[in-house]
């Protein structure tokens, strides 16, 4: 699989720490983070709530500046948000004054692509998230899962180098969540996208990731990184029966133990 064979480094986080606020009232959110994201990887980040997962994503996205250390993208230091790093928020930030089509076209339009190309891209990614035919609807007419799919299509329409997702399925019901997990796995496989995905659900991480990063409680440090392959197995077999095998339980229990040791 392409994800395994070429290990081209995309994002490199070096000795990064992040502190919110000034002196007395400051919170150390992240401590000494070192992480490399390679092209085509699906990285899931796990950790107790409040451990700094969102903060880590915001540093990569360029929304906040690390207090020390740095985030490099293809050798260049990240300085503010740009379209090479697409972001999907937990609650979709679709623009209600635009139709689904206009939302998906927003990125390509901002980059002044030719009209015909914008239309092709829009059609392609709406189809990719199974929403062809909904283009003329307004986003508030859609269900939660459909909204999140529009948000994903909108980000993909820019062909970003990496897609950063902050608990994107956290607000969805179990059934929708499972469909969304299959959808994002298929998109990742078909388009060879690089995905950085935050979740607090161990199963979700193991069903999607090829690397699962486990963080400590605040201040967030990386405790352990697991290389896993369940997502490829699920993709090939077309069902998630792998979760009933021994390897899966072993990894899951180890991660659970780490996280539980961090709470209390």
């Amino acid at each position, binding site marked *: 699989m392409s994800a395994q064979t070429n290990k081209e480094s995309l994002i490199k986080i070096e000795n990064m720490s992040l502190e919110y606020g000034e002196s007395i009232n400051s919170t150390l959110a992240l401590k000494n983070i070192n992480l490399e994201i390679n092209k085509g990887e699906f990285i899931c980040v796990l950790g107790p709530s409040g451990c700094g997962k969102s903060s880590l994503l915001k540093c990569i996205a360029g929304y906040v500046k690390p207090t020390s250390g740095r985030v490099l993208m293809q050798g260049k230091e990240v300085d503010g948000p740009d379209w090479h790093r697409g972001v999907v928020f937990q609650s979709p*930030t679709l623009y209600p*004054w635009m139709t689904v089509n206009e939302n998906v076209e927003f990125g390509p339009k901002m980059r002044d692509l030719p009209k015909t190309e914008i239309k092709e891209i829009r059609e392609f990614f709406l189809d990719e998230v199974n929403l062809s035919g909904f283009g003329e609807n307004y986003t508030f007419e859609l269900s939660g899962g459909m909204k999140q799919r529009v948000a994903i299509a909108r980000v993909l329409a820019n062909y970003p180098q990496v897609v950063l997702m902050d608990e994107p399925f956290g607000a969805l019901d179990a059934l929708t969540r499972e469909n969304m997990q299959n959808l994002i796995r298929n998109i990742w496989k*078909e388009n060879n996208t690089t995905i950085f995905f935050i979740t607090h659900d161990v199963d979700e991480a193991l069903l999607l990731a090829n690397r699962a990063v486990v963080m400590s409680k605040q201040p967030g440090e990386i405790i352990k990184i697991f290389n896993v392959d369940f997502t490829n197995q699920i993709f090939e077999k077309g069902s998630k029966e792998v979760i009933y095998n021994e390897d899966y339980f072993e990894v899951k229990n180890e991660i659970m133990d780490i996280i539980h040791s961090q709470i209390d």
Partner: protein
Amino acid sequence: MALNKKKNNKQKEKPAANHPKVNRESEKNKKTKTEKALTFITWASIFLTWYIITKLGIFTPTLLPGPARVWMAFLRILENGYNGVPLWLHLGASFKRLFVALFFAIFTAVPLGLLSGYFDKVEAVIDSVVEFYRPLPPLAYYTLLVLWFGIDDTSKQILLFLAGFAPIYIACVSAVRKLNQDFVLSARSLGAAQKDVFFKIVLPASLPEIFTGIRTAFGVAYTTLVSSEMVAATSGIGWMVLDASNFLKSDVIFVGIIIMGITGVIIDAGLRFLERKIIFWKGHV
């Protein structure tokens, strides 16, 4: 892997044609039957009380004219005008002042207010000035404006402009302050430059509050208009009422006040209608 290689086993959603449309208009403004009936009863009682008081003869008709007298006065003014000037010219004079002033107020207060909310330095320049003159009763500085710009429309339009500017400006500043920052961040991550963020995100997201500001401005400017016409004018609906009171024509005063009330309600209804059409997504942010 090839970009457009698709899997066939994807389950497709049903296309939009079978999809139940939700009502795109805000439903908050729709009143139920009982509420409509209550409003109607309220007004019926007001008219009835008015009628009974005049029938009992507590006040002389010169002080409190009955509904019939007011109606007659209205028909008379409609036919012959007031002071030789047709009614629609009085109304036209008033509305011209109102709309010209509000047009300029909207087109200056909206950009300045949004910019103030966006850039602290712009706010530092404008905010204190607005905060200073906003609580002043407009008539307090109207006398100065009349001295400088004369008794004609210019002084009134500047007065109404100032009266309408403040509420719109303040609404815009607060709209930007309350803006969901994730809208801005997501737009930046989609490649939007500062300018695009301002026009494509900040401006539309602020529209609901801007509209509330405009409606408030209309209300403030309308009352200011009528008072200014009572202080210094030779035409307009406010002047008509003042002139009538000088000659104790209380039926004309009643006609004037009722016309002012009804036109105020009509203007606000028009603005609410526009709001529902333009900001159909209100409440879905």
